[in-house]
């Protein structure tokens, strides 16, 4: 194409006076070839980017062509548009594939650092639950599935709620100063969470379906298996037509939820002032499956709970009709379950708050 005075040839055509560019097909074809060639031979990501900016960038050649399309000779206009579009697509694809090639070559090279995936992760860590509260929470959840809700009561109790209302004889040894912590106002530190059962029954009519986790106190000298304060969870179900077989069913469900699906329960007759009949409940040993081992002292069974049918005299005390009302109650030591379940050899570890111990129960 001839140039005239006042015009200047560009890569896509001829710049005329006033800055306009007149696009012509021949120049454009040459430019297309050049562009693809540059893209094929570029040796770095930066060089590729320069090619992109030159041809496809906002102020690059192709947008310029599209903008000036109206100035193209009418007979060439369709062809120029087609060529520019196909070039744009072809170059973009080429740039993309070349960029991939160059990046691959780059990370394989030795100069760039490789990320160390073995570095420790960052961010704050979750804390740990105390084994006692873990066992309480799990027990509450298991009984919760059977419809039991949690009830709470005070640690400082009246002798009435801790003993009298529970049908404990005036001269029962549990009341002695050698067994119970008494306070100077005539009250005491509860020796069991059973007084909570009394308080709940005093406050409402049946049905009652509660568990009462909490801290209890007995005047034991601390050793590997005794602690002057400890935790219990007790349960009470009072309604009409509640039987000893229902109690066994509830404790059997608890046993395999808490200790494992193969754990069985058995009852032995016993005596508690507030239940009649009274039983002690053994779980088959979750470690040896009943064959006998160190954990169950060779017997295959582990004593876990005291339980029984609520004594009608207790119902009388709380103003329930002992004839139409029946119910069961049970109680067990949380520390004992925690020790058996986690293999903790000494109850004192539970109250030493040694981080090396606590970290094991995340």
């Amino acid at each position, binding site marked *: 194409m001839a140039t005239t005075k006042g015009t200047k040839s560009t890569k896509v055509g001829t710049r005329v006076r006033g800055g306009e560019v007149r696009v012509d097909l021949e120049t454009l074809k040459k430019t297309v070839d050049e562009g693809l060639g540059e893209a094929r031979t570029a040796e770095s990501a930066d060089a590729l980017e320069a090619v992109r900016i030159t041809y496809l960038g906002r102020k690059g050649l192709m947008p310029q062509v599209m903008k000036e399309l109206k100035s193209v000779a009418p007979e060439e206009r369709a062809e120029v548009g087609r060529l520019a579009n196909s070039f744009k697509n072809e170059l973009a694809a080429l740039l993309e594939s070349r960029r991939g090639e160059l990046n691959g070559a780059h990370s394989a090279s030795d100069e760039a650092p490789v990320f160390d995936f073995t570095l420790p*992760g*960052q961010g*704050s*860590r979750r*804390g*740990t*639950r*105390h084994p006692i*509260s873990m066992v309480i929470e799990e027990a*509450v959840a298991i009984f919760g599935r*059977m*419809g039991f*809700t949690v009830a*709470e009561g005070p*640690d*400082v109790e009246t002798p009435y709620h801790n003993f009298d209302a529970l049908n404990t004889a005036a*001269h029962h*040894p549990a009341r002695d*100063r050698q067994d119970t*912590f*008494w306070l*100077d*106002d005539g009250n005491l*530190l509860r020796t069991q969470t059973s007084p909570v059962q009394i308080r709940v029954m005093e406050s*409402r009519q049946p*049905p009652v*379906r509660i568990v009462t986790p909490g*801290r209890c*106190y007995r*005047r*034991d*000298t601390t050793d590997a298996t005794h602690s*002057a*304060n400890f935790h219990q969870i007790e349960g009470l179900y009072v*309604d009409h*037509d*509640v*039987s*000893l*077989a*229902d109690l*066994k069913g509830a404790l059997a*469900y608890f046993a395999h939820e808490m200790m494992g699906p193969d754990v069985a329960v*058995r009852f*032995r*007759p016993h*005596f508690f002032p507030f239940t*009649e*009949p*009274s039983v002690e409940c053994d779980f088959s040993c979750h470690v040896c499956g009943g064959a006998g081992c160190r954990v169950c002292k060779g017997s295959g069974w582990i004593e876990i709970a005291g339980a029984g*049918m609520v004594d009608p005299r207790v119902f009388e005390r709380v103003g329930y009709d002992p004839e139409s009302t*029946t119910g069961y109650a049970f109680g067990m030591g949380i520390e004992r379950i925690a020790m058996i379940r986690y293999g903790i050899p000494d109850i004192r570890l*539970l*109250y*030493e*708050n*040694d*981080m*090396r111990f606590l*970290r094991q129960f995340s």
Partner: protein
Amino acid sequence: MKLPLSWLREYVAVEAPAEEIAERLTFSGTEVEGIEHLGAGCEDIIVGEIRTVTAHPKADRLRLCRVFNGTDEVPVVCGADNVEVGAKAAFAPLGATLPDGMTIKQAKLRGEISQGMLCAEDELGLSSDHGGIMLLPPETVAGTPLLEVLGGVETVLELEVTWNRSDCLSVIGMAREVAALYGVELKVPQPVLAESGKPVAEWTRVEVADAADCPRYTARVLTGAVLKPSPLWMRRRLSCCGVRPINNVVDITNYVMLECGQPLHAFDFAMLTDSRIVVRRAATGERMATLDDEERELTSEMLVIADAERPVAVAGIMGGAGSEIGDSTQTVLLESATFDPALTHRASVALGLSTDASHRFERTVDRSTTEWASRRAAVLMSELADAAVAPGMIDVQAEPETAAPIACRLARLRAILGVPLEHSEVLRILTALQIPAIDAGDDVIHVVPPSFRPDLKIEADLIEEVIRVHGLDELPAADPIGRIVVDADDARPRAVAACRDHLVGLGLSEIMNYSFLSSRALDRFGREGVAQRVELLDPVSADHGVMRDSLIPQMAESLGRNVTHQELDAACFEIGRVFFRENGAIGEEDRLAIGIMGRAAGSSTGGAPVTPEATFLRLKGVLEELARVQNVRDVAWTPGDDPAFETGWCVALSIDGVVVGRAGLLTADIRHNWRIQNPVALMELKLDSIISQLHDTTSFTAIPVYPSVARDLAVIVDEAVQHGDILRVINSVSPEELTDIGLFDIFRSKEMGNRRKSMAYTLTYRSAERTLTDEETNSQHAAIMDRLREELGAEIKER
């Protein structure tokens, strides 16, 4: 209680092995805690006759004996005091193995050869007696195996008799149980007395001041008693039961008590002033020496057996030293009586004196056994102590209470147990237990509790009897069903559980401390509350003498103990109860304590020391986040004062103007007690203040549709100006569109000047109605900057 099987089998013909009997007893309510085989391992032990005894030339406490083993005389060195020429004793010859596995070898003791060992009972595993070598009856023949003399190995069951079953505290009582379990006959012998001399009423009189204290008192007089050791068989049985043999008269009283459960006491009749017995309350301050040679001070809450002048026994507990049976005793007054259980128990506790007798009286002794026991003991004393029994027995007793009949309804029994027991089975069990049962038809059985079963009072007691003998093995486990109690509200305990979870999620570890500690440990944290502290009347130790009135001291101690284990970084919380006096009453309250020391787990290690600021702010961050997730707004931190915390680092925490807790940095003084180097931030608040929002009140607000504009500014102010002041000033301008104020940097430099700091904030503006223009944002921002300059003298740099 210990139960020798050979003794049991005198009353009930059960040949089952010990293990099986133990199993049956355990599963019928009397747990067998152990089975001992006394005499096992004594197969090598023989009777030795001590021929000579001479002093050891080099040791005062050893003697040289020559012991005849049936064939030879061998030299034996012995340290016991009771070696005597002519005595027969348990002897372990050379090569013999003792029950503990030790084999006897020739030995030299201080230069003297010993070829065997004279044994004490404990060395043979026969009892815990180590009072000397085990002497055997003179008629035994040297060389005879010991087990032949003893009548073989004795199997002893160790029983845990429950508190309600006083009837099981005897061999005959247990025989009754075993007879019922095995369905065999109980054979109790009827002792037949031969009486002589002047009748008992001419010897003595008995006066009972109050029949309520002593429902029955019987007395016999026996004359011409010859005091000597009991026969070996009796001594063996006493030893098997853990009772130390003394002499024939005393041993007989113990033997009969073990046999039938009725405690007996024998007085030296000659020592009773005016030859009579008065059962009365002690006068307060009255004193007597008991058999254990302790001088006891008595009170009017104690029942005594007295003569005309002074107490000669604490009723039901222990005899007096002054009337003790001794070698000079010839005439014996034999007491068989019952005493009020509660009274006996209180006296036993008050005196700190628990005996085999008090153990039984506290649990009720059957009045119908009282006479049998007296007769049985009198017969034994005439046989074994050559005593003559004065005719008759003084018997002072109140009218016996007749037990009320109990109706046992089969329908009720089946409903309570959930087991369809047959009518005939129920009758069979009650009859086997010797509980008289009358079938009243209509599936009701009437029962009159026998005198030996005072524990049977209501229908439920009978239901228990039936199921414990029937066996619990077949009790079905019913699938748990039942109603949901719809109005039961446990929102609070669930909120506490959620609070625990949040704290663990925030990186804290849960700890638990005892509810009591020493007053010294509390004092270290301030003595302001001393008067409000709750002390235990009888603490196990002074270290656990006071109920905690705060969780802070133990939290600090727990962190400190960890430092001694090189655990320098810890973040802990405890949820626990504290106790205090309030308006004269004892109150309690749940609290939450948090303690932070060192670095956060998972943060990069090393580098600069942990600052007090960083530690305090970590604590604050935990509480802020906890409050946020618990839906508790606006916890106010205001300067406080607390002896446990460093001055200037102590705050009071309040919600809605009510103080709910405190926080601060532990004083250096207290930290040094445990050599804690890092700052320790502690906080304690009322648990309920942080879980007050029991129900989720969250409600949705529309997500903003218009973009926000963020503007940074640096506020250069005097050191005294606090973040809170800047917030207050900014908020006082309070443009509607200011939605967030974020502090992102605090910076100090020389250029800024001494005691100046730059605090950099990002202020975010956004309108709910439109996109804010630059002009609008600028004017709001400018107003804020102006206010900061005016009120705080701040120099502002826009960024």
